[in-house]
């Protein structure tokens, strides 16, 4: 038996967190589905940006912002990134991969922190790159549409917030359901289906319900206006998204920390 390996002193929690995060990052890029997802999203976002740019190529409106169009193009496909975050989280449970994962990292709080951080940071950074790429594409096709830097910083800031909170929500739902199908249904429901469905029912209760959904907050923050009848503000949208993200993570985290690995 080798003594070299056994004699190493025990590292602290910080070192374990960094190592686990490195492993989680490897876990992401070592499966083809990650690359297919990234490629599909990039093609879709750049495609919408190109079409929008071609459509506006003769427009001369320097006061208009290509960032708005780029953010809209990226926002349309943000759902793919959320699906990626959810599937990545749930797949470890559905494939049984959680069994070796917890043998290698039995400190579940470390695993939770590393997994959440890596997925949220990856989705957020990739989302930012997509907004930048889409906005630049629009501006290249339609030079008459401006690309002001101050507007870019503001747009990217809000896009980062939306991507990060929605990724947290997806990770939380993935950990809570431990099921790809169930998780996708949950994310679809609160981000897309319910906000669209509730706005067509003209009733005070459905409007108030709609204002509590994360999808409604996302629409307000990306488009500047909520679905029909809702009275969203920036503050209410931020609070709604943060509450949903932290709530989902609390439930999913509790399930990972307190229950059997695949129970």
């Amino acid at each position, binding site marked *: *038996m*080798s003594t070299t*390996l*056994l004699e*190493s002193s*025990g*590292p602290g929690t910080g*070192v*374990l967190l960094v*190592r*686990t995060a*490195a*492993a989680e990052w*490897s*876990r992401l890029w*070592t*499966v*083809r*589905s990650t690359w297919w997802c990234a490629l599909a999203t990039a093609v879709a976002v750049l495609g919408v940006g190109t079409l929008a740019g071609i459509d506006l190529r003769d427009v001369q409106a320097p006061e208009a912002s290509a960032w708005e169009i780029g953010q809209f193009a990226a926002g349309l496909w943000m759902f793919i990134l959320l699906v990626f975050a959810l599937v990545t989280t749930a*797949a*470890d449970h559905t*494939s*049984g*991969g*959680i*069994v*070796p994962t*917890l*043998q*290698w*990292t*039995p*400190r*579940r709080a470390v695993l939770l922190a590393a997994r959440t951080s890596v997925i949220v940071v990856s989705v957020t950074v990739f989302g930012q790159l997509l907004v930048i790429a889409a906005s630049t594409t629009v501006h290249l096709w339609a030079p008459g549409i401006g690309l002001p830097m101050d507007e870019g910083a503001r747009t990217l800031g809000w896009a980062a917030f939306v991507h990060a909170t929605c990724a947290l929500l997806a990770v939380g739902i993935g950990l809570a359901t431990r099921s790809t199908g169930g998780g996708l249904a949950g994310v679809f429901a609160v981000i897309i289906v319910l906000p669209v469905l509730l706005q067509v029912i003209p009733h005070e209760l459905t409007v108030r319900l709609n204002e509590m959904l994360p999808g409604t907050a996302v629409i307000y923050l990306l488009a500047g206006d909520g679905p029909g009848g809702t009275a969203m503000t920036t503050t209410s949208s931020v609070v709604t998204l943060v509450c949903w993200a932290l709530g989902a993570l609390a439930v999913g985290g509790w399930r990972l920390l307190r*229950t*059997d*690995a*695949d*129970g």
Partner: protein
Amino acid sequence: MIKVSQLTKEYGAVRAVDDLTFDVEPGRVTGFLGPNGAGKSTTMRIIMGLDQSTRGTALVHGKRLADLPEPLRRVGALLDAGAMHPGRSGRNHLRIAARTNGIPLARVDDVIDQVGLDAAAGRRIKGYSLGMRQRLGIAAALLGDPGVLLFDEPVNGLDLDGVRWIRGLLRGFADDGRTVLVSSHLMSEMQLIADRVVIIGRGRLIADSPVTEILGALDGQRVRVRTPFAVDLARALEPSAVSVERTGPDEVEVDGLTAEDIGDLAHRIGVPVHHLAEIQQSLEHAYLRLTEDSVDHHGHSAVPTSAQPNGASR
């Protein structure tokens, strides 16, 4: 060393493990045996920190697994060979494991070589056979060169060469002074590998002894007799034998009498004997006897009714 103390695991009203206590000492291979549903896998999962016990403790080197900062360097386990992401290559699977525990990536190629997966390590796991997945799981268990090893049914899916390889591997680990706990349904394999066995049934401890003691506790010699008049012979043997078991239409196995005793008796009652042989006591026989009251799931023989061991009677 592994120390399991008063371990109990309940799933609602079902008690999968019931006040189980045993130690697994270093320097020997300990077989972990029991019928389906006895609680073996649950016990191993609790030792590895995957499931939480309702009561009691399961410690490795005196600690819970979660209290070991680099668990792969202290304990390696193969619990479920299918529990891997099918879209990842075997080498990347091991690299991820190595990163979590700060193990040099060069060690990955060492264990790939050790388990004989060199040619397949770059391929995606979805293309692996069960035997290759077993080898990959064993490679992950060996990655940190740990002193404690747990294997749940390690020879499942392995070909004869693989079975012989794992037999030598486990023996080598024990001879190195490591602690080795192996569960298996293959009694003949266990008899060859294990120095000691822990047998459980319905979650409770049935036996915890060296294999030699388990075999020694069986009631003397066992003799197999083949005769066209098995019913008559069995009836005649019953008063003097410890047990008479019908093992076929024209075959009985007898405990507590010598071959000479049985031959003489058959001659006295005029029963022709076509085969008479002393058979070596096996761990399988001991196991079946020890667990006969603890089997939850019984199958039925596929032998046609006409061929059931009724035997002929005069």
